[in-house]
């Protein structure tokens, strides 16, 4: 599956990335480790502030839900003990979206993948890499990276995020499934997603390589 | 740009004083500045007004200058002392001077110091080293004292103290190292403009009706029950008993050997009012309270004598609450002035 990414697009953030995946365009910024406000401060690890902003209108409970999902994921992947009493602030701004507002699959998928690049750009310590894929099942047919239209016609849709150990999809960090599906379908989907995530990771490496070359262009 | 004429209508003014000012205002300011440059100034200057174009003057408070011209920055009267030109504002916050006897309120307990609101621009400080602590004044301040500063004086407590020095940044440093200073109890607090307090040798007075007053130079006033000369042993015992609940060792239970020792025991930091304040004392205190309010309303300088005169005049009103009606306040001021004249 193809995506395009550009890193260090924002001057004021410590790390940022702009990702176009399918018809979704999203930009993420990471600032940190920086000084937290008193109420945010944790004595032995970094606190995470995650803000998700919609492409249209003002932030609602839908965005809050996305924030919580993303927080649960990132909390387990960032080495927070490396930054005691610090804050890592992550803002995800959707620019172009392609799904009915009652769905969040495409956006969640884009946000996770975009955060990976923004966190790497900010050089925040991670336990491992991660990659997320989205798919839906329509009449027993599996569709990877559905468009908004395909999503709304599907019977069920799923977002799976794996952590990547030594280039291989390892553990499932997040699985979001909605709709009607049977166990077999899900297992089938998971095994399909593994190869997709690994494919995605190869692409991630390609972009990270380009970033390093860009960072040391003056060498 | 050309300036267009403006028509304006104001309320007709009958007072001739008003017209005079208006005319002098229309005169050019330069003339005004020069005419008053020689002797005592007439009238007042207002912000932005040119006072003089003579470069000879040194610029004091209430002025600013550009090139040779000096302008006023406040509304007030011009004062010329030798070559120093300054404008004294009509009103302003209390500015402390070393030796002023004042009343203040604790606003913050900080590192080895208290911050005290004394009505100045910036809160004053009271260093832990500048207070008498239980166990004698000559005792060294220990770390345990530092840890229980809030047991001595806490936020909201009122105290009676003296300005020790003024730091270079304008902040006043206070002290209470004398038996007449310390935490205030058994009374009521009142605030008047500091300009009304006339500085004198003594600011604490015993008034008729077993009421005492502290007229702080900063305009903060404390009216309280007059203390008996010697405190009865029973009260000391009561207090000492109370204190035993707190885990403090020095001075505990050591009841008066010398008067000094006794005064600097825990009792001086007690929060308990004297339980034996009679209702007549209480109503006297409120009477004095309203009398002082009336004097402040009439913008009369507040002195011991005027407070007493006002008190006497107020006795004509049986209802203390009615003292702060506008007419009664004016009446009291008038009577105070009259009796002062009679006494010469």
């Amino acid at each position, binding site marked *: 599956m193809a995506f395009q990414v550009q890193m260090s697009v924002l001057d004021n953030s410590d790390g940022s990335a702009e990702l176009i995946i399918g018809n979704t365009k999203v930009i993420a910024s990471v600032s940190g480790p920086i000084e937290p406000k008193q109420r945010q401060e944790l004595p032995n690890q970094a606190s995470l502030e995650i803000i998700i902003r919609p492409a249209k209108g003002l932030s609602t409970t839908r965005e809050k839900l996305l924030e919580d999902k993303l927080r649960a994921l990132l909390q387990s992947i960032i080495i927070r003990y490396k930054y005691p009493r610090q804050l890592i602030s992550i803002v995800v701004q959707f620019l172009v979206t392609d799904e009915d507002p009652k769905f969040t699959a495409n956006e969640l998928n884009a946000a996770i993948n975009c955060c990976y690049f923004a966190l790497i750009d900010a050089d925040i310590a991670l336990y491992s890499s991660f990659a997320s894929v989205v798919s839906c099942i329509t009449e027993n047919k599996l569709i990877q990276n559905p468009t908004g239209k395909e999503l709304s016609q599907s019977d069920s849709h799923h977002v799976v995020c794996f952590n990547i150990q030594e280039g291989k999809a390892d553990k499932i960090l997040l699985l979001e499934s909605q709709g009607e599906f049977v166990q077999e379908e899900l297992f089938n989907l998971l095994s399909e997603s593994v190869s997709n995530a690994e494919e995605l990771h190869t692409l991630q490496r390609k972009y990270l390589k380009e970033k390093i070359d860009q960072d040391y262009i003056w060498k | *740009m*050309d300036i267009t004429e403006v028509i304006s209508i104001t309320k007709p003014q009958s007072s001739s004083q008003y017209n005079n000012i208006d005319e002098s*205002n229309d005169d050019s300011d330069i003339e005004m500045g020069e005419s008053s440059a020689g002797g005592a100034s007439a009238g007042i200057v207002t912000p932005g007004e040119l006072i003089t174009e003579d470069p000879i003057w040194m610029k004091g408070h209430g002025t*600013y200058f550009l090139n040779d011209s000096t302008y006023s920055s406040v*509304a007030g009267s011009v004062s010329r002392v030798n070559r120093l030109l300054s404008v004294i504002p*009509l009103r302003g*916050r209390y500015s402390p001077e070393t030796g002023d006897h004042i009343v203040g309120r604790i606003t913050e307990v900080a590192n080895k110091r208290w911050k005290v609101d004394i009505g100045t621009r*910036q809160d004053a400080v009271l260093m832990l080293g500048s207070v008498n602590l239980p166990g004698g004044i000559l005792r060294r301040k220990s770390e345990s004292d530092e840890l229980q500063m809030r047991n001595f004086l806490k936020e909201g407590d009122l105290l009676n103290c003296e300005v020790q020095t003024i730091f270079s940044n304008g902040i006043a440093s206070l002290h209470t190292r004398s038996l007449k200073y310390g935490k205030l109890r058994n009374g009521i607090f009142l*605030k008047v403009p500091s300009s009304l307090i006339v500085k004198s040798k003594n600011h604490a007075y015993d008034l008729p009706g077993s009421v005492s007053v502290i007229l702080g130079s900063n305009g903060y006033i404390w009216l309280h029950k007059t203390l008996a000369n010697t405190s009865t042993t029973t009260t000391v015992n009561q207090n000492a008993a109370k204190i035993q609940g707190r885990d403090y060792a020095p001075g505990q239970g050591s009841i008066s050997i010398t008067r000094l020792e006794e005064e600097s025991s825990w009792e001086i930091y007690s929060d308990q009012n004297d339980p034996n304040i009679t209702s007549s004392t209480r109503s006297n205190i409120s009477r004095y309270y309203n009398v002082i309010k009336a004097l402040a309303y009439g913008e009369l300088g507040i002195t011991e004598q005027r407070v007493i005169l006002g008190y006497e005049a107020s006795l004509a009103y049986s209802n203390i609450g009615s003292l702060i009606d506008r007419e009664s306040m004016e009446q009291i001021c008038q009577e105070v002035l009259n009796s002062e004249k009679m006494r010469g």
Partner: protein
Amino acid sequence: MELYSPEGLRIDGRRWNELRRFECKINTHPHSADGSSYVEQGNTKIICMVRGPMEPAMKSQVNATSSTVEVNVSLANFSTFERKKRSKTDKRITELKTTLERTFNECIMGHLYPRTLISVTVQVLAQDGGLLAAMTNAVTLALIDAGIAMYDYVSGVNAGLYDQTSALLDLNTLEENDMCSLTIGVIGKSEKLALVVLEDKLPLDRLESVLAIAIAGSHRIRELMDMEVRKHGNMRLAKVSV
């Protein structure tokens, strides 16, 4: 309804260059504030109180080199014809508050009062146009009453343009609703502008004529305020010498 008749009379009978009745008092609340004032500009009525310079309540208000000016604006629910509930976070109130803060921060000699807070409360009792201008005047007077050093008066008035041609001075609500309104704040007797706020369209080439009458009006208001300050000052001086 005709806002400006062919005979040159406005809806309340004024001429184009005529101010509304302007009345002001200072030291209206001597016991509850360091400085106070009351201003009536036509039917717009405002009370202003100043406290300070004093110890700031919040650490963020401490400026090591200068005083911090904080303005709180409150519009009484009964100040307009329709009784409206306003939220405290109303954008318009924030704009007024910020404008006043920035204006007076520049005009007060703040370097004389480092690490202090000057807290200004503006209470609007009645609104009938020229709100920002009247507030500016009220704050100026209250600051003078508090004895806070300022470089000069800031006096304000608004002006508008009727029918693309005639400049009108000191608009009331009816006029403000129907034409553009330029509010200015002028420093002393100069032509320096401390604040300029224009709402609604004004042809660029008419700006000068509207600005000219507004400046002239501001100067007149400064004179009226100055008279009041002097009257009050002389009265106090007389009392002291008694």
